[in-house]
């Protein structure tokens, strides 16, 4: 991941221009836009020259593919279950190989990004008292700070309190006595129809785009957030874009074709170009890698929270928040996992077929196995499964907490 941009990202410019779709979904070729604004969610597409997420790439530096010639293929696929291939594909046997090659060729995946120039990263072992990951404003004096603004990313916590960090040509193995995580939050995706439309994004992403200087003046924005955040949102965005709606109630529907056009909140319909969702899933993945237990919380829109956090780890700020989010009625046709195009009804079908274990359902549907590795979708998936009578056990925490380029891992080896 790169340092935050001082000019608008590709996704920010696309949103400002009223054509937010920059990516397409892997399986169904649905148009998608940047949801997270910081390279976590994997929805916005990648820059073919670098492999970086378009939300981390300055506008103008990468071409945006607007048309997806294979979108038509996604439409019949929408009616199929994620394991459609099991009974419908690949007969006769002799055709198997070629058939699959064609099938693979039809995916919306990007091409192979070029290998970056430059030598292997230097490996350096650092021993510190306190390592602070995230918002530097929350760091204690004397702590070693891993700050995305300085181009540093912590991607894993390994044995012996070792935190792995990539930072400007170095791979740091930081051994720490204390780990402070002020890593903020991801979006908690609400289970309403239209939740994957381009223009639906995390409120943090909109604030980030605004901070990058994107000209959002013409953008009609609906903000959905807990009431206590409304004043701050209005103050931050009121004169940067057209705030057409600020409310706590989750829309009953998000409408549009190819992008958001309006939301329906009760009897009211609000025309808008973007829906900024201030619904936070605390970013706890490093705490889980350090040994905390993930549990699905409660409330109308539960998120995954860190329980039994080891005594050497501390969550701070929004990563530690246990905000009560507004609820909504779960809709079968809404997406639970946008990376793999898994809808609530697909989870329902998996459970109905007799699978009762999160791990089985995860592997059967693909839910939570895409580029975000559950960061955006896990709350929605586990809540849906809980409501179907399946024990909502979070998936095994594994590195990489942030996607990490192989080149940044390929330290000079002694072999």
């Amino acid at each position, binding site marked *: 991941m790169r340092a935050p941009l001082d000019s608008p990202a590709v996704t920010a410019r696309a949103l400002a221009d009223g054509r937010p779709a920059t990516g397409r979904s892997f399986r169904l070729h649905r148009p998608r836009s940047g949801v997270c604004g910081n390279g976590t969610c994997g929805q916005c597409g990648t820059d073919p020259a670098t492999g970086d997420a378009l939300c981390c790439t300055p506008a103008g530096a990468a071409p945006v593919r607007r048309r997806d010639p294979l979108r038509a293929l996604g439409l019949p696929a929408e009616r199929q279950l994620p394991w459609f291939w099991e009974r419908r594909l690949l007969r006769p046997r002799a055709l198997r190989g070629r058939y*699959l*090659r064609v099938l693979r060729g039809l995916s919306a995946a990007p091409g192979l990004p070029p290998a970056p120039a430059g030598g292997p990263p230097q490996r350096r072992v650092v021993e510190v008292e306190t390592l602070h990951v995230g918002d530097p404003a929350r760091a204690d004096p004397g702590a070693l700070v891993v700050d995305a603004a300085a181009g540093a990313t912590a991607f894993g916590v*390994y044995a012996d309190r070792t935190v792995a960090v990539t930072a400007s040509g170095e791979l740091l193995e930081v051994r720490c006595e204390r780990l402070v995580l002020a890593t903020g939050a991801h979006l908690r995706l609400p289970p309403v129809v239209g939740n994957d439309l381009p223009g639906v994004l995390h409120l943090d992403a909109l604030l980030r785009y605004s901070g990058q200087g994107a000209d959002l003046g013409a953008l009609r924005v609906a903000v959905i957030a807990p009431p206590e955040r409304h004043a701050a949102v209005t103050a931050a965005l009121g004169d940067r874009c057209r705030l057409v709606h600020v409310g706590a109630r989750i829309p009953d529907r998000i409408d549009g074709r190819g992008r958001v056009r309006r939301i329906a909140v009760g009897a009211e319909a609000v025309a808008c170009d973007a829906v900024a969702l201030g619904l936070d899933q605390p970013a706890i993945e490093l705490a889980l890698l350090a040994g905390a237990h993930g549990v699905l919380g409660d409330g109308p829109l539960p998120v995954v929270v860190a329980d039994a956090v080891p005594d050497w780890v501390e969550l701070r700020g929004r990563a530690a928040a246990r905000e009560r989010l507004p609820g909504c009625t779960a809709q079968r046709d809404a997406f639970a996992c946008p990376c793999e195009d898994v809808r609530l009804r697909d989870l329902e079908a998996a459970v109905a077929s007799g*699978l009762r*274990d999160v791990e*089985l359902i995860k592997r*059967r549907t693909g839910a939570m196995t895409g580029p975000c590795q559950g960061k955006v979708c896990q709350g929605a998936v586990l809540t849906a499964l809980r409501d179907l009578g399946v024990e909502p056990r979070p998936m095994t925490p594994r*590195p990489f907490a942030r996607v990490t*380029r192989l080149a940044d891992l*390929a330290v000079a080896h002694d072999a």
Partner: protein
Amino acid sequence: MTPRRIVIVGAGIAGLVAALEARAAGCDVIVLERGYPGGGNSGRNVGRIRRMQLTEELTRISIAASDYWLRIDRLLGGRNPLLHPTTYALVLYGDDEAERLGALEPMWRATGIDARLYDAATTLDRVPVLQGGERPVGSVLSSALLVHPDAAVHGAYLAARERGVDVRLGVEVLGFESAGGAVVAVETTAGRIAGDAFVNAADAHARGLAGTAGVVVPTHPMRREALVTHSIRPIMDQAVTFYRPFEGWFNQTLRGEIVAGVTDPDEPADYNHDSSLAFATRTAALLARKAPSLLGLHAVRQWAGTYEYTPDRSPIVGAYTGVEALYGLHGWSGRGMLLAPVSASLLVREILTGARDPLLAPFAPARFDGVADDAALHADYYGGYASTGAAS
């Protein structure tokens, strides 16, 4: 007496295929699994199905195993496990490796498989992802298959339930109960379950389980790690393996991810499913040497599983010595997806008819009678796999 009621421990691909075969033969079958189907190594592998092996015994059973996979969809109730062709590419970086493997060509030819030793230029031409990397001295290329392991496990699990196999999840087997020299029941967290024949298909946990019946199995568990990148469009059709400087491998999945791993030659023998940073950097560094064009890819996840190693790196399939009615079906040493289904099928036939298939002859548990308990830890890795082949 022909066993009527068969109890199988482990709902991985081995246990589930054994269950389906036994059920098809008319038995009552109970499968006990403490986690979820495929929760062990059946869900932690990359589904390489290849005929090319370094010993004749393994080659012969691998040929049968590949053929079995090609018709397994019938056993799975018409479900397709996403089996598809690939080229297995064993890439060589030392002249001694080429010499050692070249000596195996007559065996491969005699068994009728298409494995051949190729020179460096042909290797780079046939496996273009290696271009720009360290120049190999050659490779052994052979046609092979990849299967989607989850699809196979789910197909087997769903088919087993449809056919009336009693699959009990969340039930842990605590031990075997013997009477008069034969196992008569298993003790589980859900009570005692009696049967006529018992199959130990618990892979890395098979050793401990066999021990409860007084059977010593000289296997050892060892962690094997992998990492996976985000999906990209198809760029390679080969499943690459190399042994220098350490054993490593990579290939592209149907979803477009590159999966890769490089083993640690000093990996300790124990149960450990943690992910290590040393693995991630070692794998990336070796890919940088062998296939540098992949370095722009982003890794999204690491994972780990456990191999169960036997002293000769070959499986344990058949009746254990010293106790009746208890059969081993484990010790895959990294070849479980390949060998488990055909082995399960042949073992079930043996249990029901008493006739042992010649393909299983080299894999009887009795070959380790009296072998030192820690034998699996010794002998060099390559040599372990080729102990009766060209290895010196």
